[in-house]
């Protein structure tokens, strides 16, 4: 039984052992083992050349990863919190995601950018961000979000082996919250596929990462499908549509502010492709459209189980 931090550490160790081109880079990832200790021990095992402590410069880190990945390495860059990924937005959208198209395939960027995201640990400002949708809008960048130790390990291995750049978002709140059985040996979970965690007839709950546990708890009392998207870009439209066509009702749960969040994309897809099956409004449960508050108000901001339950009750009225 391991938690998500341990599972991620296993995935990194496994991939580094499997492929000597895989290297880790980031602030405090070396001796310190990373702020959440995801790379703990790896510096000792693989040395400073494969586990690189970087100066404090996120755009430079991602920019260097681009150059490294184009020339034979497979860098796994850690950004300490999603709030510090923003300075690297330009490198991701202007370069990482386009090098393949720009060079018509001569170069690619097989790199992973890992970062914790989401709230729930009562940290100071910019440590609780969930701006995944902004990154999902970048063609050429894959966005992956595990929701458990097992999926974290399998998805991270798959992300590392993927020939294209992957943004890998780890729900901070879940790092040590759940433990589960995770195989010792390396395995992958294919990118772009959702998983069905619970089957039912009355509605489809769609979520990912940080909101999945709450969604599952809220789902407990109902006869519903629960879908964990796992990959947000490109996402598994087929799984979403198949379920909604069966149930006729959809509730999508995200932590991020509602406006232009990823839930909007899923809802739009349903409204476009499954409208004839719908029996109720496509409902989003989301953070409010306000600046993410400091910790004392955080619990009022992040959707709680009650808000999910209310949404389920609401769609079931139809």
């Amino acid at each position, binding site marked *: 039984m391991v938690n998500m931090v341990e599972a991620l550490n296993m995935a990194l160790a496994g991939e580094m052992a499997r492929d000597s081109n895989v290297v880790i880079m980031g*602030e*405090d990832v*070396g*001796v*310190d*083992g990373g*702020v959440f200790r995801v790379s703990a021990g790896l510096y000792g095992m693989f040395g400073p050349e494969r586990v690189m*402590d*970087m*100066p*404090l*410069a996120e*755009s*430079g880190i991602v920019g260097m990863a681009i150059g490294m990945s184009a020339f034979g390495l497979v860098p796994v860059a850690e950004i300490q919190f999603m*709030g*510090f990924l*923003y*300075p690297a937005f330009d490198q991701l959208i202007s370069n990482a995601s386009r090098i393949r198209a720009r060079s018509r395939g001569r170069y690619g960027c097989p790199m992973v950018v890992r970062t914790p995201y989401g709230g729930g640990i*009562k*940290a*100071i*400002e*910019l*440590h609780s961000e969930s701006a995944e949708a902004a990154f999902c809008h970048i063609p050429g960048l894959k966005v992956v979000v595990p929701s458990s130790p097992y999926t974290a390990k399998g998805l991270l291995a798959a992300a590392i082996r993927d020939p294209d750049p992957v943004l890998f978002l780890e729900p901070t709140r879940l790092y040590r919250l759940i433990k589960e059985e995770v195989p010792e040996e390396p395995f992958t979970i294919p990118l772009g596929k959702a998983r069905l965690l619970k089957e039912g007839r009355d509605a489809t709950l769609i979520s990912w990462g940080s909101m999945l546990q709450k969604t599952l708890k809220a789902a407990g009392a109902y006869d519903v499908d629960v879908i964990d998207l796992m990959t947000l870009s490109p996402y598994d439209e087929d799984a979403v549509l198949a379920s909604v066509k069966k149930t006729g009702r959809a509730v999508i749960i995200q932590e991020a502010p509602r*406006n232009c969040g990823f839930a909007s994309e899923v809802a739009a897809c349903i409204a476009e492709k499954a409208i004839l099956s719908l029996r109720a409004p496509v409902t989003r449960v989301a953070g*409010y*459209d*306000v*600046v993410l*508050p*400091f*910790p*004392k*108000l*955080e*619990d*009022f*901001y992040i959707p*709680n189980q*009650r808000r999910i339950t209310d949404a389920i009750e609401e769609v079931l009225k139809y």
Partner: protein
Amino acid sequence: MPEYTAGTFEVKRLDILDSHGNSDRALMPSLGEPEIKDIYHRLVLARAFDQRVLALQREGRMGTYASILGQEASQVASAYAAGNNARVFPSYRETGALIALGYPLYMLFQYWSGDERGMRVPDGMNIFPVCISVGSHVPHAVGAAMAARIKKEKLPSVAYFGDGATSKGDFHEGANMAGAFNLPVVLICQNNQWAISLPRSRQSAAATLAQKAIAYGFEGIQVDGNDVFAVYTAVKRALDKARDGKGPSLIECFTYRLSDHTTADNASRYRSAEEVEHWKKLDPLARLGKFMEKEGMMPSGYAEEAARQATAAVDEGFRKYEEAGPPSPEDMFLNTFKTPAAGQMAQLRGFSGGK
């Protein structure tokens, strides 16, 4: 002259007060006994507050906190030089500067407990809210200096940041613009030798951080950051220069972070106890105390009384913090825009209030 020198540059270092409390008379700033005592009291208060937050954090009554232990001199003396006649742009590790500027302690408790109200800088104080994203506030300070110039206000900008911040693009862009426009900006780098676990030597191959100013065409100086007089002198000079329209300066305060990076960190994982011991001997507060003793400014019982007063002030601050109670959840809907948008008001109406 086929291969010749296109430019030569020099970076100075300023030390005034040594670790035994002896000062270089020729360089001593013109601070009278009351002012020196004032600085001393602010150092003591800053330390008392710092230690209290650490204690409260351990009890789970405060959030993650970044201690200033060891950096009090560079923070307090610089802020003392700035006073309210400059606009101060702090990072998260400037509690000492804020306290020296008279920031209400209860609001600092609010801030570190995770309550925005602590960052509603009191009217009349020229302080910008704490910036968490490392280095991103440097351009804000530069912009404020531009505003001051255009609006003909004699308020230079003072930005505080760490050694790690000098690696960030925004430090560079801000500093370069400050130079290009010759703006009244004082950049104070708190080089505390570590950026979490990355030692200064691996942050940059530059021998000093002060020399980074050469890239921007203005002056950089390194000062002993545990020496209140050196820090005060350098900042005062830089502020005078800024007010005289002579442009920006970079001041590297060579100091040390004696605590863990934050309460969420464990520095023993990456640095040696010897190094920490070495720096403990250079403690800025003890050093100023020794000076004051030698100068006869420290009658017996003085230090104890200063400590008592500081404790009382911190107690009082904490009491006021507790009295203020928690923030209201509705606040979150009302402060994003000056006038909340229709959608925000709708969300507020739908907001049930419960967690």
